[in-house]
């Protein structure tokens, strides 16, 4: 089973930074770290390297991670909604397998035709979901 996921350098969760699931074992953590250090060497991308390094320091030591997670905010450093929204904006949600596969659907009625001809004269008008949806949104 592969433990790695796409890395999210902006995330505050060290597992996201390394692109690992939180149940990754020691070996997987070390392998992933070495992989990422090769990909983001300090001389080429010092910021990314520092983030990876910091995340690795936390993830490799369960106690350090526990302390990191258990630290509560203080009145001097109250977390801001805008910060998490900005962070989440850079992390689009996952798409389901069904949804991805459905992107390849064709109209049943048009099943005999594999492609709409790119001939302007023969192209059918597209029922435009976005137009109607966005209009409704407004």
């Amino acid at each position, binding site marked *: 089973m*592969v433990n790695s*996921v*796409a*890395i999210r350098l902006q995330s505050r969760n060290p597992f996201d930074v390394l692109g690992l*699931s*939180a*149940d*990754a074992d020691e070996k997987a953590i070390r392998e992933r770290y070495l992989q990422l250090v090769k990909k983001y060497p300090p001389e080429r991308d010092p910021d990314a390297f520092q983030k990876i390094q910091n995340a690795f320091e936390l993830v490799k030591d*369960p*106690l350090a991670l*526990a302390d990191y*997670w*258990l630290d*509560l*905010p203080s*009145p001097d450093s*109250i*977390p*801001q*909604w*805008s910060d*998490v*929204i900005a962070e*989440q*904006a850079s*992390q*689009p*949600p*996952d*798409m*389901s*397998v*069904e*949804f*991805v*596969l*459905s*992107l*390849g*659907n*064709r*109209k*049943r009625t048009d*099943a*005999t035709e594999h*492609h*709409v*001809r*790119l001939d*302007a004269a023969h*192209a059918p*008008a*597209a*029922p*435009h*979901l*976005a137009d109607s*949806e966005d209009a*409704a*949104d407004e």
Partner: protein
Amino acid sequence: MANKAQKQARKARQKQTKRRTERQRAQRRSGSPALRLRVRLSKEKPERWRDERTEDVALFDDQALAQLSPELAEQASLVRTALSLVCQSHGADALEPLSVISRRSPYADWRLFLRGFVDWLDGKQDAAAQAWSRLDPARRPHRIAASLLLAHRDDLAVLTPVQYAGSSNHEQPNWPQQIDAELIQGANLVRRVRIDRVAIRTAKQICDIPMELEDAQVTPTHIRWLKDFTNEFGAIEPDLVQALHEVTTSRAFCGRYVDIFQQCVKSFRGPIFDPQNLYIQAVFCYESEQQETGDKWIDKLIGEVLPQQSGLSPQIQKALGSSIYVRFGEVDAAPHSEYDMINLMFNFRGQTNKNRNLQKYLDKAVSLYPKHRAAWRRMLELLQDELDDPQLLKAGRDKLEAKAAKVRQRWVKALPDDIEPRLDLVDYLLEHDRSDEAKKHVDFLAGNRYDNPLVDSIQWRWSLLEAMRLTCRKAWLSQVPAHLDEAERLWPKWLSAEWLPYLQAAYELRCGNPQALQQLSPQTTSSVLDACMKLGAAQKMHVPSAELKPLRQAVDGALKNVKSCSLDDLLRLASFYWDLQRVRMKYPAYRLHGPKFLKRLHSQLKDNQFVLLDRIDEPLVRGALLALADDNFFNDRYRLQLFDCFNSPETWQHHVVASVAAKAAIQVYMNWGLPNLRAVITTLRQAALSSDAFYRHFYNSLADQLDARQPERSTPYSFGGNEALDFYDDDDDDDDEFDYDCDCDDCRAARGELEW
């Protein structure tokens, strides 16, 4: 008082209001773009088109999968798994199993698609387009890829197949050559889900909700808004919703209103390790002196909730539980009232009881996660505090020492590479005639390489301690010379060998030569040092008390005339004490006269600070100052009491002053405003580079310990964070903000008594 009819009428009104509110919410939701998007997404299923290849259909249709040959069915399963992993952002690693698919296989197109898909998810559209340019346009992977690429077009909202055909984009080799209406629809959906993200736009509203109350971090309006937001977007943007839940609960925790905090913890999901927010509730209970309730939450969290978090490795689960125990134990043992403070400062029995409670927490912590080094260290610190009690009787001391030895045994079992507890354990075992057990630890230390001079000299210590132990019984005395010879051979270079002849003479005395020590030609010009070395050696070699008496008298005589001792004599004596301290071989009578000699030395140095600064580079002075520091002459357990000439940061650049300041700072019992000793740490680290083996390790170790005690590090006595319950706030400016006994609205609100 309302009658029955009035009650019924009120109830009916309430029901009607509730129904109306729910109806309004439902109406709001049904018209929301989020709900429409969710409904739309739920309808999106892959459907087979006429003449579609069975290999492609097999990826979503089990019947089609069953029709494939075993080889192709296996490849289809691999593609299914990889697609699922990639959709969950499992990166390029998910594609490794697909390497078994040959280029001629019908699934080669899917492998190509997935490679591009990983790039596309990573924001590398050009790389994705490049990979997808070789896909067969008649097959599903090409259509999916086309939708994904189209989703990034700025003109997607107005794009039609006809316009696309007329534009020049399709002429680029990496773009789909032809599109249809379905592709545009799919691209629109992808754009809404991954690029436009209406949830992000909507989420920004929470920042604009005004705070209805001054000092509030969260208001009921925020809570209502977030509940609605969760209902709308929980299914399509779970990470965003989760992040908003966590930040809102954290803000409520920092705020002043108890009821708001309670609403938040009940309404919103907690972090990955604690979805029910039990930890933050327990902290709140502890800080508001409801420890029993807090304990209930902790037990539930550690006993029931954490083990169920399958997304966390067992190691992390246990480490979390262990850290929670330590944190709550420390807070439980911290002073909560003036009475507690007095107990703490004067070490009354109450504080001892609190420390015993803390020991129970620590015991739970190390039982749950035995590699919790800080918990082991804290356990031993607590036992040492009890051992430092001057009124402790021998029986009590023995019991505590045995307890400490057990703790050390458990510690080295859990963390075999930890040296300090193992060295202490060896001492304890040898002192208690358990050399067989001690030998195992000595062999372990000798067989491994550690950057610690005491470990490097472990064979020497073993020989010397074994020689001392063998003098316990007459029958064993014949074995002593061999061990003493071995000790002489292995004597460390960094340690003065002045004491060795005294030990050899003391052995002679133990064997029955009454003149052995008397005949020993003085190894030093200092009579007081000579007397102390003789007494120390005799005690260590188990000389009977009758023969110790004249040796004791000599030391007592020197003590009586301590005022006549020269500064040099006292410096030599203190330096000898430092040698004993650093090899952990202080003799029992030391505590009767050692501190008194040191007190005199301290007084003399205090009066001759210029002389001290002149001679600061002498090894003798360094040893003497460290002996003084070791005996708490430079702190009173609550603050530093350095010589005036040591108080300026300029002098901290000298390694001897830095080491004295560091040692004193580490011994301060509570960190109540230690000065910033960064300069000291820097000096120690630099000095370690050019010192002998002992001081290289000693300076680095001091720097590490001091680093952990710097003022910017949080003290272990508070969780921090909760403004309303921050009882021991040292910022005087805030002290007037609310009063525990005041009944004005502000103070009641601050105490969380105002209802919403």
